[in-house]
């Protein structure tokens, strides 16, 4: 079991958390709304989960749930006034929301610990390990060292969470709600003329995105066991958007792929150290020139789906 490297597992774990963030930006984008507030919603989920578990000894799953719901609720509150805006104006407003939130996190020291952040958040893997030991199970019995077991269990929990969120929203896109989203994205006035309550569905999509960002944030807190305002800056907001821009925003798998690939890339390029972000930038520029719709678009997916049949026939 020596090949099970905790470092690799950790990179994979961040890929998964970012994939959930990718899904969250996809949902808001699927009604044609450009939001840069998802880093802010992520911080709500992260801080809520972190504070509940460190100060009130709330069990981790409950804290994660509470953090996600809180982010979703704030999403509704922010969504209703800001969805009167569209396009770049909405982007600016949501960006402003994220920055205000970060300022609050820095300055409300009595609650959030200020710029230092919240430390010693129970780490999922460690909690699972101690539960396993209490239950009379030891990682050694399946040939794992403690740190391997911890990283592996975090990875598996995150994998499950990612698959569940992706599956839920993939399914949603085929329902009445999903089609309303698509219609609104394609043409708001046509959607309105068809009798779709446009505002309702825009707020719904916005708060679903917020909820999922909060979920990713809460998972993030219990993975790194440390959060600070520095984790949720403007850079994070743009990074999340880049997942969708790079991976493609026409299909849910686009941002998921973008998140996984762009998280992996800087790690894979560690050997060339300082130059890797230059390469990252060049890659994005080339993408915009040669494939502005992102790596994954419906045409590509159709080709993948069709090719096995064609080879059979």
């Amino acid at each position, binding site marked *: 079991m020596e090949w099970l490297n905790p470092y690799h597992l950790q990179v994979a774990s961040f890929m998964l958390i970012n994939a959930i963030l990718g899904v969250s930006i996809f949902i808001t984008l699927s009604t044609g709304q450009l939001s840069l507030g998802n880093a802010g919603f992520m911080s709500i989920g992260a801080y809520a989960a972190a504070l509940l578990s460190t100060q009130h000894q709330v069990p981790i799953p409950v804290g994660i749930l509470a953090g996600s719901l809180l982010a979703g609720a704030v999403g509704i509150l922010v969504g209703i006034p800001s969805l009167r805006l569209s396009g770049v104006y909405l982007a600016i407003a949501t960006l402003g929301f994220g920055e205000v939130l970060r300022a609050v996190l820095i300055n409300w020291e009595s609650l959030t610990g200020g710029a230092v952040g919240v430390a010693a958040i129970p780490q999922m893997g460690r909690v699972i390990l101690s539960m396993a030991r209490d239950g009379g199970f030891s990682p050694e019995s399946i040939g794992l060292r403690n740190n391997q077991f911890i990283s592996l269990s975090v990875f598996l929990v995150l994998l499950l969470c990612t698959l569940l969120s992706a599956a839920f929203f993939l399914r949603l896109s085929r329902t*009445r709600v999903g*089609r*309303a989203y*698509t*219609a609104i994205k*394609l*043409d708001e*006035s*046509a*959607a*309105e*003329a*068809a*009798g*779709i*309550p*446009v*505002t309702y569905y825009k707020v719904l999509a916005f708060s679903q995105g917020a909820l999922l960002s909060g979920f990713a944030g809460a998972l993030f807190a219990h993975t790194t066991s440390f959060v600070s305002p520095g984790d949720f800056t403007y850079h994070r907001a743009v990074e999340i958007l880049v997942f969708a821009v790079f991976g493609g925003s026409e299909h849910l798998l686009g941002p998921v792929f973008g998140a996984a690939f762009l998280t992996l890339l800087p790690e894979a390029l560690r050997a060339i150290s300082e130059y890797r972000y230059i390469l990252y930038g060049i890659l994005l520029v080339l993408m915009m020139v040669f494939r502005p719709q992102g790596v994954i678009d419906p045409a590509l997916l159709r080709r993948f789906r069709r090719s096995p049949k064609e080879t059979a026939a």
Partner: protein
Amino acid sequence: MLEVRGVDTYYGNIRALKEVSIDVPGGSVVAIIGANGAGKSTLMKTIAGALPQRSGTVSFLGEMITGLASHEIVRRGVALVPEGRSILSRMTVRENLEMGAFTRRDGKKTARDMDRVMERFPVLKQRAGQLGGSLSGGEQQMLAIARALMSAPKLLLLDEPTLGLAPLVVADIFAIIREVNAAGTTLLLVEQNVKQAMKVSSYTYVMETGKIVLSGPSRELLQEPRIKASYLGKA
């Protein structure tokens, strides 16, 4: 069926409708004609709830629908086919039609209406799986009308349905208007194609700069010298 009373609609500070009042009796076709910028489309959007009016009332089947959201109005049986068609170009024809039935929850009836609409518009049946954007202008207009019919409206608002279409297609559209009306749907029609619009309608309103300046039974108005001079090109 539809009563509009003293409606004022503003774009910012610009008063686009000035105390407009019209009546659309059940089962009829009513036409609104007038030059560009007269406020015809503004009136349609105001009735459909896409624009807020500042004063006046709109009532439908005796119920006030003033200030209701668009989807509420669609649910009550008023469907707008907006100017410029605005079909969902990257959805298929069938999906477009399904979106038209969005407010309905009667699955079986909706399926039956889908079949009926496909029968009435054979072109759409042929192209059910194609993307809306790949249709020709006339076909898109038919799709827009068909989509509105999928909400099973009692009153259909048609905003410039023949805009930019070839003469033969224009004739098709007017034939469809007659059919739809014969099948029991009331129509309010905004048209630049004055002669045709007045022939298909029983009553006509003439709008100029946000006001109704003339109205009457279409057959009588066709003989009116002012109409002849301004809209029919006969001295």
